[in-house]
């Protein structure tokens, strides 16, 4: 039993177990063992975004009761973390439990930088990386400064990646445009979703990316789906995989 609970998004649990394992490995390397309560399933965002608050609400309640006992909750997804932190209050009445659990839920990089106080990860990653700024991590969690705002420059994720030896970055024409995933949007507005994804992919390739990374596997799943259909030779890796792998 540790005081850090790990929340693994449902689609990561099912489709990208290696991202969950990399998250565990990275945190263990930073002397932060985690506990994975098996009652967890999903934060409820897919139902909430589909317009069904009734269906999302019990999942929000379950999340609160499952993670109540931890000091921190860490999740390798900006979007699911943003759901908990910003949108549970649309679903549930105000309560001390809601306040407490939403305030202690962190996205992985945010947790590493802000709570563990780690600015540098030892290791090497000699590749040119395209860092995809996922929208909810950027504009809801503020892991970096969004291009629309007149605020001091900030980029917690790139900061961590930059500490790896040999890493280079693909510089993008549009540094934080949406990839077009958007959950239900990806199928409900399939044409625009894919057009956005292809444009984002093209921007990363123009910047010379060998590997495209980000804090949200959902954005990467969409981009990877487009890239592999088009047989585009570019690799995808969640930030946790790069950080955990490089430190090995």
């Amino acid at each position, binding site marked *: 039993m540790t005081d850090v609970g790990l929340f693994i998004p*449902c689609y990561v649990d099912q489709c990208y*177990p290696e991202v969950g394992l990399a998250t565990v490995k990275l945190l263990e390397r930073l002397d932060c063992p985690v506990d994975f309560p098996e009652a967890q399933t999903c934060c409820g965002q897919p139902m909430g975004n589909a317009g069904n608050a009734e*269906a999302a609400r019990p999942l929000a309640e379950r999340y609160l009761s499952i993670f109540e006992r931890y000091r921190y909750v860490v999740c390798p997804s900006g979007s699911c973390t943003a759901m908990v932190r910003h949108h549970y209050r649309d679903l549930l009445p105000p309560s001390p439990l809601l306040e407490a659990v939403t305030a202690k839920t962190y996205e992985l990089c945010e947790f590493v930088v802000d709570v563990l106080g780690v600015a540098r990860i030892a290791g090497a990653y000699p590749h040119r990386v395209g860092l995809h700024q996922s*929208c909810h991590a950027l504009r809801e969690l503020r892991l970096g400064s*969004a291009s*629309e705002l*007149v605020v001091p420059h900030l980029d917690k994720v790139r900061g961590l990646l930059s500490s790896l030896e040999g890493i280079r970055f693909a510089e993008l024409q549009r540094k934080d445009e949406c990839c077009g995933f958007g959950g239900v949007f990806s199928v409900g507005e399939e044409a625009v979703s894919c057009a956005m994804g292809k444009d984002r992919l093209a921007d990363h390739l123009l910047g010379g990316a060998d590997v495209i990374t980000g804090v949200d596997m959902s954005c990467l799943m969409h981009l990877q*789906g487009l890239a592999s259909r088009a047989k585009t030779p570019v690799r995808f890796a969640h930030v946790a995989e790069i950080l955990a792998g490089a430190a090995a």
Partner: protein
Amino acid sequence: MTPHAQRAAAYVADTARMHWHDKALWHVRQKRDAAVASVPEWEALRTQAAALKAHTLSRLAEYLEEFERNATKLGVVVHWAVDAEEHNAVVLGILKERGLVRLVKSKSMLTEECHLNGFLEKHGVDVIDTDLGERIVQLAQETPSHIVLPAIHKKKEEIGELFHEHLHTESGASDPKYLTEAARGHLRERFLAADVGLTGVNFAIAETGGFVVCTNEGNADLGASLPRVHIAAMGVEKLIPRAEDLAVFVRLLARSATGQPVTSYTSHFHGPRPGGELHLVIVDNGRSALLASATHRRALACIRCGACMNTCPVFRRSGGHSYGATVPGPIGSVLAPSGDGRRYAGLPFASSLCGSCTDVCPVKIDLHHQLLLWRQELGAEGLTPLGKRLAARVGSFVLQRPRLYRLVGWLARAAMRLLPRALLYLPLNAWGRQRELPPAPARSFRAQFRKALK
């Protein structure tokens, strides 16, 4: 598919045009970024503007009455209109009483919302839109596709053809300067012949009774100054308390809209010109209903800069007409369902919820959050598709039961590994039309984590 998704798919199918439209608007967004970067106190200005609007909306009735008193003192005739029909009737009444039949109009999204042009034309009034973009869409018998750049969907070659047909410019001419010059000559004649001018209103000031119109072409000024009668139309939300508040909004408006420090013309009207008449029509048309909604009243803070459209990755790739509403884009998708939830139930879903609109908005409307809340409200009212509602309920049922979730997950992954490709990628799999499905590993994270612990 929602009507927006259908129209958007058709727009995206013309890839070259879609990219052209995307780049044209992204260019405006970049100009906006450069302009706001030169204002170090930009975020403070946004905060102040949001506070001013929230305050004004919290006592809108009082400010409207104060404004009416002061405007009347200045010699403005104030009319009230509860809806579009009444607005149109008021305008027609003013024209009929005076026998006015040639109206020049500068840009007003409110009159678009009220469908004034068609109404007046039916009653024998000659209506000429004098904003260049609006004139283009009027000649093409279309509606504006963007609130600030009404003809942004048209290429210069298409405008050349349109002008050749209507204004007798040279065939094949598409030089913007030449075409603009032709429009200028054509419009000047109309201005001189007009007997009434109609303008919109950007800001109405309660303490002075004056109002402000911002344009880049000077067409509002010609329309308000040449004919004897000037009619201005405004929604109730255009009000600000004090003249000094303009200092906040004028700095935000043009930078957000086009990246200019200020519009070419910022005209202040304080009563009719000597010998003339000035009428002001103040319109509700659903705005009180929005004001009554604790969730959505913030949308009334909108100053119609269009920045949310320029930044929206969906708008840029689907075109303004895909929204099927007078005001398109993120703000339009927030406003429209308030008027007709059934008709516009698909618009809050025409967004990836990326939040760029929220961060670009000069008055800090939480646009993407508003869209999410609309989805849930429309869902609760049963206005979202049945399939979507059922899928969410089934999903929720499974996800509330960890063992069932594990079983369903295992079965789904097994199916993805074992089923033939043709079956997995049936046409009803919208994900798979252009994208590969995600991997389906034999063991989930939780199975591997549990094993590692043992």
